[in-house]
């Protein structure tokens, strides 16, 4: 990969913009603002990782001393612990490093430098499986790659069913920005012409295997759709990006916590940040944890940020005309709430009292695994190395109104041969018969799990813990968050509908899991600084500018008004692009 020249941050000057966070949101803000000729300082709390040396997605398990497992002094929090214990979960754990549950996935040794050590980053309150990545690129280094659009079924959901608030924009406002994200970053998929899941400008799609084609045909008879995984992966290559290769179907896409050595899968460093550096307009400072947005005493506008160097512990200030937060839904809310001043005693941009509130996400857990009998004993196919398997879009509350719950859910699924036969652990017995069964059934399993919309509620929120601080002395978040009745009824329907679909397709059901996973499990937290037309009920306007502070923007998932059931990354980037275009034009005209 070409070498990147990193400019040294000059804290004596006033930048055109400071961007806080370097994931999907911060990376996109850096890309768009620098493309407008603005001088941008990008501050990332984590370290700059040579990510291509970290993931080793083509390494064979037996080439690693622990077959991909992390060293014995490290520990990952287990599912039961999230439900039995209270945060901070690392408290009392006798291990040198403690990580969130993601670190328990296969190949955990490859993500240990990406995820935060829970010992350094406690939080308190209600049970929540909070997954954080502090490194250049944030969670885009390990994201699941499912790249979906929202539609007016989502943006105008409140008008459709009467619950909550509409977004202050419609699909027509954002469509051209989704197009730009598709073209700039690359996305693989198959056109389906669904009004509730708009198509992207797709590159070459991944392909379905025989089991998936069979299920697709059966579901079509139920007026449901199974489509190849819409992956935020360039399968045809991107001529404008010298840091990324096209997908060669080779990597450990589903064997490890994610990430792609050749950067065919989108990650923020190679997709957005390195190209932004090549403009000469971007300065990056890593190991820089912003702890406060500073405001001008006279004008009340943002004037910069205060940050801690996480290696030296020293404090610094940086100045800018515009401050853009992209620190993640929960960290941006934390930062606003921490930024208290005489003018803003409840935290910055919080005259509405909505910062930290209307916190929502995706509920998950219900899942199904089945055996496609026709595939038992068949020749091995190669189903691994695809960026993903398949997606079954939402089918509830589209034409009919479900009597039990509002909104909908979709299924992510996968099937066929994988490098490691997961079903071996569920196959009874031992000996030659066991061995043959594992071998014969290797390509015959199919499974899927649901992601459902959690309704935003004012009562679900985060605030600042009055006593607990992180390793750098910064007060931490306290959770007040629980799934409600609508979510639990939806989850029951997820399991029922999964069974119905597999039965219709003649798939032998091996395992039907009705368990709802702990809050936070989907890593799709959203909505703590929502957009809206009314400053009394929202934090940001439709261009993600704070109603109270026009030169402050929050461009991550915290701005989302509702969660929809589609994975949020592509929408975060499309919205951010639109907002940054808007602010750059406004600043050129001297309006901000």
């Amino acid at each position, binding site marked *: 990969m070409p070498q990147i020249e990193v400019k040294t941050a000059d804290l004596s000057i006033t930048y055109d913009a400071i961007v806080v966070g370097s994931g999907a949101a911060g990376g996109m803000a850096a890309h768009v603002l620098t493309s407008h000729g603005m001088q941008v300082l990008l501050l990332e709390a984590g370290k700059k990782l040579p990510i291509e040396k970290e993931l080793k997605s*083509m390494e*064979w*398990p*037996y080439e690693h001393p*622990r*077959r*991909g*497992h992390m*060293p*014995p*002094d490290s520990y990952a929090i287990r599912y039961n612990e999230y439900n039995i214990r209270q945060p901070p979960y690392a408290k009392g754990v*006798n*291990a040198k490093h403690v990580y969130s549950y993601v670190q328990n996935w296969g190949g955990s040794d490859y993500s240990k430098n990406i995820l935060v050590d829970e010992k350094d980053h406690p939080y308190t309150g209600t049970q929540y499986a909070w997954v954080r990545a502090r490194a250049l690129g944030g969670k885009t280094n390990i994201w699941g790659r499912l790249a979906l659009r929202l539609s007016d079924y989502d943006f105008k959901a409140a008008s459709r069913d009467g619950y909550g608030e509409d977004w202050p924009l419609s699909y027509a406002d954002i469509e051209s920005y989704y197009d730009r994200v598709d073209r700039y970053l690359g996305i693989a998929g*198959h*056109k389906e012409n669904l009004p509730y899941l708009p198509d992207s400008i797709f590159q*070459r*799609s*991944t*392909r*379905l*295997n*025989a089991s*998936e*084609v069979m299920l697709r045909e059966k579901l079509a008879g139920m007026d449901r759709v199974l489509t*190849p995984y819409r992956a935020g992966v360039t*399968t045809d290559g991107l001529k404008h990006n010298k840091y990324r290769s096209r997908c*060669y*179907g*080779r990597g*450990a896409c589903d064997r490890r916590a994610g990430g792609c050595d050749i950067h065919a899968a989108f990650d923020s460093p190679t997709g957005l940040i390195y190209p932004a550096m090549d403009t000469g307009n971007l300065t990056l400072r890593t190991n820089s944890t912003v702890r406060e947005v500073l405001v001008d005493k006279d004008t009340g506008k943002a004037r910069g940020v205060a940050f801690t160097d996480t290696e030296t512990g020293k404090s610094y200030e940086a100045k800018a005309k515009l401050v853009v937060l992209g620190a993640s839904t929960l960290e941006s809310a934390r930062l606003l709430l921490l930024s208290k001043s005489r003018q803003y005693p409840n935290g910055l941009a919080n005259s509405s009292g909505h910062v930290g509130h209307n916190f929502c996400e995706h509920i998950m857990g219900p899942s199904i695994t089945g055996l496609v009998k026709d595939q038992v004993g068949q020749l*091995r*196919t*190669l*189903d*691994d*190395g*695809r960026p993903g398997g398949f997606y079954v879009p939402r089918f509830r509350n589209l034409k009919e109104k479900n009597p039990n719950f509002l909104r909908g859910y979709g299924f992510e699924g996968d099937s066929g*041969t994988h*490098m*490691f*036969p997961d079903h*071996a*652990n569920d196959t009874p*017995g*031992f*000996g*030659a018969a*066991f*061995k*043959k069964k594992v*071998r014969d059934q*290797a390509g015959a399993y199919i499974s899927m799990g649901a992601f459902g919309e959690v309704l935003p509620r004012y009562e679900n929120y985060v605030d600042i813990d009055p006593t607990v601080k992180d390793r750098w002395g910064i007060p931490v978040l306290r959770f007040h968050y629980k799934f409600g009745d609508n979510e639990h009824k939806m989850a029951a329907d997820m399991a029922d509908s999964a069974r119905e679909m597999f039965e219709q397709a003649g798939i032998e059901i091996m395992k039907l899991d009705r368990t709802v996973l702990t809050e936070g499990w989907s890593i799709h937290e959203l909505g703590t600084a929502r957009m809206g037309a009314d400053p009394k009920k929202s934090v940001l306007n439709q261009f993600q500018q704070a109603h109270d502070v026009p030169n402050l923007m929050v461009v991550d998932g915290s701005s989302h008004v509702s969660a929809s059931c589609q994975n949020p990354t592509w929408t975060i980037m499309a919205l951010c692009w639109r907002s940054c275009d808007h602010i750059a034009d406004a600043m050129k005209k001297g309006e901000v």
Partner: protein
Amino acid sequence: MERRELLKIAAVAATAGRLVEAQTQHKFFSAEEFAIVDELMEIIIPTDDHSPGARSALCAAYVDERLAEEPDAKVKDSWRAGIKQVDALSKSMNGVPFMAATPEGRTAVVERMSAQEKFFALVKEATIHAYYTSKIGIHQEMEYKGNVLLNQFVGTELAP
């Protein structure tokens, strides 16, 4: 030469290797413990006419290394205690310790363990992990075709 004969030779070679190895120091298990674990694992995933089993894939050595660096004493103890139970069970069923029993006698012990014991689940899980992440498990047994450069994804292309 027939594929089957090749496998037999491989199995004999592995057994010979084991005899040499039994003389050497293991990192966690004693020589006696190691032999029992190695045999349990081979009974769970044996050599068959398709591919070599857990012994050839050096599964016991992998577990030995992991346990040597395991910080949780409870995990270590559960292996030691489990191995003792295997011998005790064999004495009550076969009249002799596990390794002194006939192959049929050993299989009968594992059969009994599989019906009731937590230790069997522990050994089985470890065997599965070590075997299917080994060269033999991935390439010979499962005939995994991936981790190669593909110009086109495998599967069915849908009509537009």
